[in-house]
């Protein structure tokens, strides 16, 4: 029993034992809390960027693999078409064309066979469909007789005709590469490969290249004609004709990325949290009213900003990741504007007793008054969205739901901060968080889908998870916006 009494006595004595810690404890505690928050922020952004990079790398890799698969499939298909031509023939044929490109002089006309071979047989097939024989521009007296196409051999039905011996010595045959003077044979490097008997059409003075499948003569009787005809070939069949020996492909690849511009116009507001719209509730909670600005007992509610305008604009690129899903990445800017009731402007320096901020405001606004001041916050942002197509767009315009994150950077501000101790508004940029993260969601309809530049129009809502003001953050500290958004597709 006594033991219990002893403990009770100790407890009673020690119950209210207070000791004041030294003043250095709290700053250290605060520093550690902030450090942790910063670290978490760093880890978040680092992880996010890592994920993005990994995702993009994976996507690129998958895309590349997919293209190779498609190409190999095409080669396989083409083998069947070209049969009975052998692989060796094909490769030697490709090699020939490359050699021709390299050796046909400084002003050469060539097909980009190398690229085609690399990219698959569909292109390879084209190269066989339209045979273009190099012509030396430096020697206008020369007439080139292109090699006949192998499909032409195939048409003869004689498999032997298809066999084209490789690395044999040049054969002196008319039409390989010949001057106009009878019998004078030119043996340029390319003629080493011209080991297939060229065909001279009956009635023609000079050798003529025959388009085997369309049987369109694309021959070269003389340089002007040759060039002209080659031009025709180029125009008609979009075969690359390059002035350089490198032989770059002029075939225009259709980009996998859709490019466009976006514009959003709506209302901006500072909210307490997600799903909180406006400041009405705050007015009731605090007991003060915004509509009573002359009240000398100014409440916190008087300092709360009203809604304003929200604008977003920028450029984006978008790519389909699935049948109905796509991903877009943008770069743009956003302006959030909120209106503020203030009193008169006093153009005098005044020390501001703002927490952790020993600032001197170069002029300030009195708190109570009926003047309106528009706060503006300007962000640079890189919106990252996923888009989901909701319907097929047959009976109803194509509908899309989009959702994503908007990492943003506060590039500028022209806004007032409220000092609740002195009841004044002043400008101080250092109180704002520079980096922010917002989430946005929206619903769009695709308009004029058949046009060259379709338009997507819809509604959006966005919300900044990050706090606007980092120093002495007020209750309403999250920017939010909603309104109408437009996406104008520049190229698809």
């Amino acid at each position, binding site marked *: 029993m006594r033991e219990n009494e002893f403990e009770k006595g100790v407890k009673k004595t020690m119950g*209210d034992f207070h000791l004041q810690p030294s003043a250095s404890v709290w700053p250290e505690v605060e520093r550690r809390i902030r450090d942790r928050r910063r670290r978490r922020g760093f880890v978040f952004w680092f992880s996010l960027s890592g994920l993005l990079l990994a995702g993009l790398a994976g996507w690129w890799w998958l895309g590349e693999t997919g293209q190779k698969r498609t190409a190999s499939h095409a080669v396989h298909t083409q083998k069947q078409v070209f049969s009975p031509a052998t692989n060796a023939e094909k490769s030697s044929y490709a090699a020939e064309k490359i050699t021709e490109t390299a050796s046909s002089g400084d002003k050469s006309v060539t097909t980009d066979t190398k690229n085609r071979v690399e990219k698959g047989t569909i292109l390879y097939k084209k190269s066989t469909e339209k045979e273009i024989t190099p012509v030396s521009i430096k020697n206008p007296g020369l007439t080139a007789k292109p090699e006949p196409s192998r499909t032409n051999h195939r048409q003869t039905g004689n498999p032997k005709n298809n066999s084209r011996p490789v690395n044999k010595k040049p054969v002196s045959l008319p039409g390989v590469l010949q001057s106009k003077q009878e019998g004078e044979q030119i043996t340029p490097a390319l003629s080493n490969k011209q080991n297939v008997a060229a065909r001279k059409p009956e009635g023609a003075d000079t050798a003529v290249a025959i388009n085997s499948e369309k049987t369109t003569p694309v021959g070269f009787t003389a340089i002007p004609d040759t060039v002209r005809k080659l031009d025709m070939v180029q125009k008609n069949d979009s075969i690359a004709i390059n002035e350089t020996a490198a032989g770059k492909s002029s075939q225009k690849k259709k980009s996998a990325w859709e490019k466009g511009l976006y514009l959003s116009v709506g209302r901006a507001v500072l909210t307490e949290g997600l799903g909180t719209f406006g400041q009405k509730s705050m007015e009731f909670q605090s007991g003060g009213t915004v509509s009573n600005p002359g009240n000398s007992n100014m409440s916190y509610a008087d300092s709360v900003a009203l809604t304003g305008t929200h604008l977003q604009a920028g450029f984006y690129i978008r790519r389909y990741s699935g049948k109905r899903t796509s991903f877009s990445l943008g770069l743009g800017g956003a302006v959030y504007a909120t209106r503020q009731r203030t009193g008169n402007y006093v153009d005098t320096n005044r020390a501001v007793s703002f927490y952790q901020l020993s600032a001197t405001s170069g002029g300030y606004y009195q708190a109570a008054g009926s003047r309106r001041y528009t706060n503006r916050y300007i962000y640079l942002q890189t919106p990252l969205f996923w888009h989901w197509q909701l319907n097929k767009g047959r009976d109803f315009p194509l509908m899309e739901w989009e959702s994503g994150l908007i990492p943003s950077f506060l590039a500028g501000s022209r806004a007032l901060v409220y000092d609740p101790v002195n009841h004044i508004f002043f400008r101080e940029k250092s109180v704002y968080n520079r980096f922010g993260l917002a989430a946005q969601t929206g619903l769009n309809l695709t308009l004029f889908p058949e046009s060259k530049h379709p338009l997507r129009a819809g509604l959006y809502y966005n919300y900044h998870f990050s706090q606007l003001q980092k120093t*002495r953050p007020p209750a309403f500290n999250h920017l939010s916006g909603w309104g109408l958004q437009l996406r104008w597709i520049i190229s698809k």
Partner: protein
Amino acid sequence: MTDDRQLVRNCLKGQAAAQKELYERFAGLMMGICYRYTKSVTDAEDVLQDGFVKVFRQLHSFRFDGELGAWIRRIMVNTAINYLKKHSGYRAELSFDAHDNLHPVSEEDAELKLTAKELAELIRQLPTGYQTIFNLHAVEGFTHVEIGQMLGISDGTSRSQYARARQLLLSWMEKNEMTKNKLYAGK
């Protein structure tokens, strides 16, 4: 003054002013606790600092099913024990062997007139093991079973250590003639 619930909400929103208010509201009391468990003011402030950092990090887990002060107090006590276990200066002394230089005093004669500060000073002069167990049992009100679980000792050891700590304290009180009024409320 903001009520606890609102204060916690504001702290969770990251409002620095609210965090400071919470600190200022409880710092004195918690410093007293830390002081009792340690041997120096510097160590007590280290514990206090660690404890408040934990408080702010774990504030989201506070469910308002008890008093905020009690919750913070528990964090402080745990932080203090961890501090004693971690720091070599204390770890060596945090033994639970019996100290031979104890001499029992008759409890009947123990009349105390101690301020909280004086009592805290006496408690701090106990060997670290005794000090910890005494604080946990006599001041915080933990049972010996709970103390055994917290410190990794048997409840019997805790019981005997506590008894010795108590005897030691009373002897010092007697020796220093600080016992003028009886501590026991019943007498």
